[in-house]
């Protein structure tokens, strides 16, 4: 197991290195650039050249890349040009990360806690109203774009009925102590219950919007997987042996049906990060996705580089975790 993990970690370094090169070249092949964003209407050829020279953007690309690598090796990923000018790009990413993790976690929690039971019961009662209803619901979840779901949620729950906040991570005037950057957790840790509750309320709509697609995916995979397992001989054998339904369900059906679900849930983490860009923008939720959207619009190279590479690191790590949990659920994987 340890050797497996170490090998994967080494692979990860290689992946990140290649990614950094591709990312560097891709960003610089895009039209426009940070100088354009910094100058706006006031730009002239002369002004642009002066600014490019000051930022080293007039150097040949290989020189720029080598310089970037050199600095990155010392942990310096440059400072933001537009998202928060002058601030260390890595700091911006790390400061924004808890928000996105918190949001993605809640979204995943909703997706898993609804998707797996619903998938299971839909499979057990194939063709029932619950089954058909859930399928339609999950199809709608996949088909409707997140921004539309978000718009509807905001319109009804926040504006019309004023049940939940429209946007942001907490209400103005809530004086909360920040410990970890996870607002709900911080509120609990510091026993500032108002702040925890307020942060939780702010999470509901974006998390629901963000969960629609992973919910649908997890629901369908669970349903299909359970259906498949129910047909297996060992389930029939177990039933024939007269085992209780609970034992059959827990030990035989669920456990075996969970393998593809765990894999797909892990993969959904990547999709959640991608979905967070849109969700955070629509809900002005101050996370990595929001920073990424701003950085992309304003071509803030350092921030873009840090965020995309950071997301890649997280993605690879999550996949590693998925593989490890796979090995725990299915002992056969370990022996291979």
């Amino acid at each position: 197991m340890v050797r497996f993990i170490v090998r994967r970690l080494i692979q990860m370094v290689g992946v990140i290195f290649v990614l950094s090169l591709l990312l560097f070249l891709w960003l610089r092949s895009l039209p426009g650039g940070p100088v354009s964003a910094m100058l706006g209407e006031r730009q002239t050829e002369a002004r642009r050249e002066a600014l490019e020279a000051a930022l080293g953007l007039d150097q040949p690309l290989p020189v720029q890349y080598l310089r970037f690598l050199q600095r990155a090796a010392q942990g310096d990923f440059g400072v933001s040009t537009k998202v928060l000018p002058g601030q260390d790009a890595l700091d911006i990413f790390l400061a924004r990360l808890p928000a996105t993790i918190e949001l993605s976690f809640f979204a995943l929690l909703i997706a898993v806690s609804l998707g797996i039971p619903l998938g299971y019961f839909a499979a057990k009662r194939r063709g029932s109203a619950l089954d058909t209803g859930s399928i339609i619901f999950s199809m709608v979840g996949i088909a409707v774009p997140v921004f539309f779901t978000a718009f509807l949620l905001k319109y009804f729950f926040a504006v019309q009925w004023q049940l939940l906040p429209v946007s942001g991570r907490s209400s103005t005037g809530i004086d909360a102590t920040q410990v970890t950057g996870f607002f709900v957790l911080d509120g609990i840790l510091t026993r500032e219950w108002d702040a925890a509750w307020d942060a939780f309320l702010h999470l509901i709509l974006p998390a629901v919007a963000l969960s629609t697609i992973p919910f649908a995916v997890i629901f369908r995979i669970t349903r299909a997987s359970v259906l498949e397992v129910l047909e297996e001989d060992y389930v029939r054998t177990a039933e024939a042996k007269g085992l209780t339904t609970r034992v059959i369900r827990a030990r035989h059906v669920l456990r075996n049906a969970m393998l593809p679900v765990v894999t797909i849930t892990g993969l959904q983490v990547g999709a959640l990060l991608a979905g967070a860009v849109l969700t955070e923008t629509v809900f002005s939720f101050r996370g990595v996705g929001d920073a990424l959207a701003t950085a992309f619009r304003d071509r803030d190279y350092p921030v873009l580089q840090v965020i995309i590479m950071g997301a890649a690191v997280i993605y690879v790590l999550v996949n590693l975790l998925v593989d490890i949990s796979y090995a725990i659920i299915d002992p056969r994987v370990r022996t291979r």
Partner: protein
Amino acid sequence: MRSIKRAAPVAMVAALALGITSCAESERSDDGGGSGEGGGTFIFGAAGAPEMFDPFYATDGETFRVTRQMFEGLLGIEPGSAEVVPELATEWTSNEEGTEWTFTLRDDVKFHDGTDFNAEAVCANFERMFDQNEAGRTAGEYWGYVMGSFANDAENSLYQGCEATDEFEATVTINSATSGFPTMLTLESLSMQSPTALEEGDANGIEAQGEGFAFPDYAQNPVGTGPFQFVEYDEANAEVTLERFDDYWGEAAKVEEIVFRVIPDESTRRQELEAGSIMGYDLPNPVDWAALEESGNSVEVRPAFNILYLGLNPEANPALKDLKVRQAIYHAIDREQLIQTQLPEGAEVATQFMPSTVSGYNTGLEPYAYDPDQAKQLLQEAGAQNLTLNFAFPTEVTRPYMPDPQKIYEAIRTNLEAVGIKIKVSSAAWTGGYLDNVSAEPGKYDAYLLGWTGDYDSAFNFIGTFFGNLKDNDFGTDTMPWGKQLADDLKAADAIVDEAERTAAFEEINRAIMEDYLPGLPISHSPPALVVGPEVEGLIPSPLTAEEFDTVSVGGE
């Protein structure tokens, strides 16, 4: 057993629903307490995050909106207009040549950190702005723009020196007279900052690092003389908080606190206002104005201080060198209809490249008539019946002068095609190539949509910006026989000390631009708006989008 199985999903949904309902109650009570009590906080929805708080290095409106509440200049702007009024200086006079300016200062002003405001502080500020390191010279955009250069290149700088001639009297010397001085002292970037804080925070210690500039601590801890002082920038919540400065020399601000909440999405800003969690926001979409008013908010329309134009580039398309072709394009565009269908209420057809409130505006100029027949005729006379234009518009952007670039583009394109001009469509994201392509040398588009919002009340800030720099302007005037003449005339007019004479010179230049040269086509001036909720009073919309929030009160307090 069975019954539990069946009940599980139902219970889950019920629990969730219950959760949401109980959230609702708590949220309501929270809200009621927070905004109702005292009415001391004005919460404003900003479209973008401030970049920093040292206005000297800032260039963007979202930063200035915040710093404007904390900083003051020697000269100020009359609320609601672009007119220059006393602020930290009560009087100013110049020598005959217009090169030595003596400012009499207020004697009752303190910075937020307790430092006295006096002539020494004024000179310390000027010297600080003038004497920048390499990174500071690039980042100090506005100073570079209005003063030409810095201490390292003193001979090309407009600024020469500052002397504290008395405790409350400072004399600023400039190298040559210009219409822009002293009006440029109303610029937010040239505000007065506490010399003590500047020094302690190493304000000039800016460095190029990687692809950006690393700013010193001071940029996050600014100290000015204004009615509000800095409290904090809560980056995690995207909220900037300012509080009333109790030792302010002037009338105290009406609210105790201002909170700027950054909400980049326009429809979210509207929803936040509707939900009552913010009390106003900037740049409401013109299509929402009526609905916002109907629901009890007030849409405050700013007087237009901008220009939208169709830029033409003869370098990219030599057919545009012919005045008749440019006139034909102009006569082909139905600007009245464009304004009625695509621009907010109150937008006006432009007769020249500046709005009517700027001195030097020529009231004698008539708008070019919409006349497709004449356009066709002119094209024929120019032998340009088969004219094809590579015509571009920007995406992913709205500007005060251009709420929806694509719609404006489509309206103009339909007009041009109607007189037989073929259009090759071009578009690019605003900062994703569009601005680069417009100002590239040579420019990449034959025709493009662009505009400008004035920085301060000066004709040169409009037409000088467009045509004053012969070598480096988006209209390619250096390829035109009159390009140099126009640039020279602009500089000469700018240097005239006598105001009446200078105004007359700019009026004549405006006439020549429109009648003799027509380097591009001014389209319109649009009034951008901001909206506030029913509980907000005292907000004065500014043509320069330079609203000051000290006059604002909330909840009738």
